[in-house]
């Protein structure tokens, strides 16, 4: 696991289905300061594309993605 990225907020979104994972990310991103990092863990396969697109449309940045057996881990930087 990556330990060198400083995470400001952890989001456990495992078990949630579309469209909830991206909605929870969008609702929680403002809880970290601009430049802060949210680490979100999902299990919904569609969230891989969804959260990636969400970041593009909202101008936030995914600095790292990790895909395990079940879990998908996003490190999302709040850009504005």
């Amino acid at each position, binding site marked *: 696991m990556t330990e060198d990225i400083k995470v400001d907020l952890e989001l456990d979104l495992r*078990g*949630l*289905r*579309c*469209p*909830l994972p*991206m*909605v929870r*990310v*969008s*609702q929680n991103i403002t809880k970290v300061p601009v430049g802060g990092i949210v680490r979100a863990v999902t299990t919904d396969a569609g969230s891989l594309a*969804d959260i990636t697109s*969400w970041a593009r*449309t*909202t*101008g936030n940045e995914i600095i790292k993605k990790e895909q395990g057996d079940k879990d998908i881990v996003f490190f999302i930087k709040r850009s504005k």
Partner: protein
Amino acid sequence: MTDKLQEETRERRKATIFVISGDFEKLFAAFSIAIGAAASNMDVKMFFTFWGLRALKKNVRTGESLFARMLGILEGGDINKANPGKYGFFGLGRWMFKKMIKNKKVAGLAELRRLAIELGVEMYSCDTTMEVMEIPKEKLIDEVADTVGVGWLIEQAQQSDFTYSF
């Protein structure tokens, strides 16, 4: 134009969603897309007409005249009574769908609507169909922003980055 510049020179993006159906899967898709757009920083407006009004109805009887009362009985109940467009089987399909959705931890219709409201999605009802079907404003949920018509819808559609209809 760079993304940043484009963003600065443009106001928030807009989406308009037109809902004429009261079918479970269409309402499900309409609310999911509304929520997704709102979460993507868009201003979202939903317009409900005909059977789509079910999505805004309180769980109360509607209709004064004979035909409207009959319709009120046949179309009884609120958003939780939305039947799937296929395999309705007099409520069996609805029951089965709800169970399947719950088992997979997918949000139900009422939850999706609540989330949409929470995210600032605005909901509008169609004036003329409310009149015809005798569903007065008081029988719709309090969150309905306004009762409007086609002129309003055209204006919203013109200003929108996308419109969907269900």
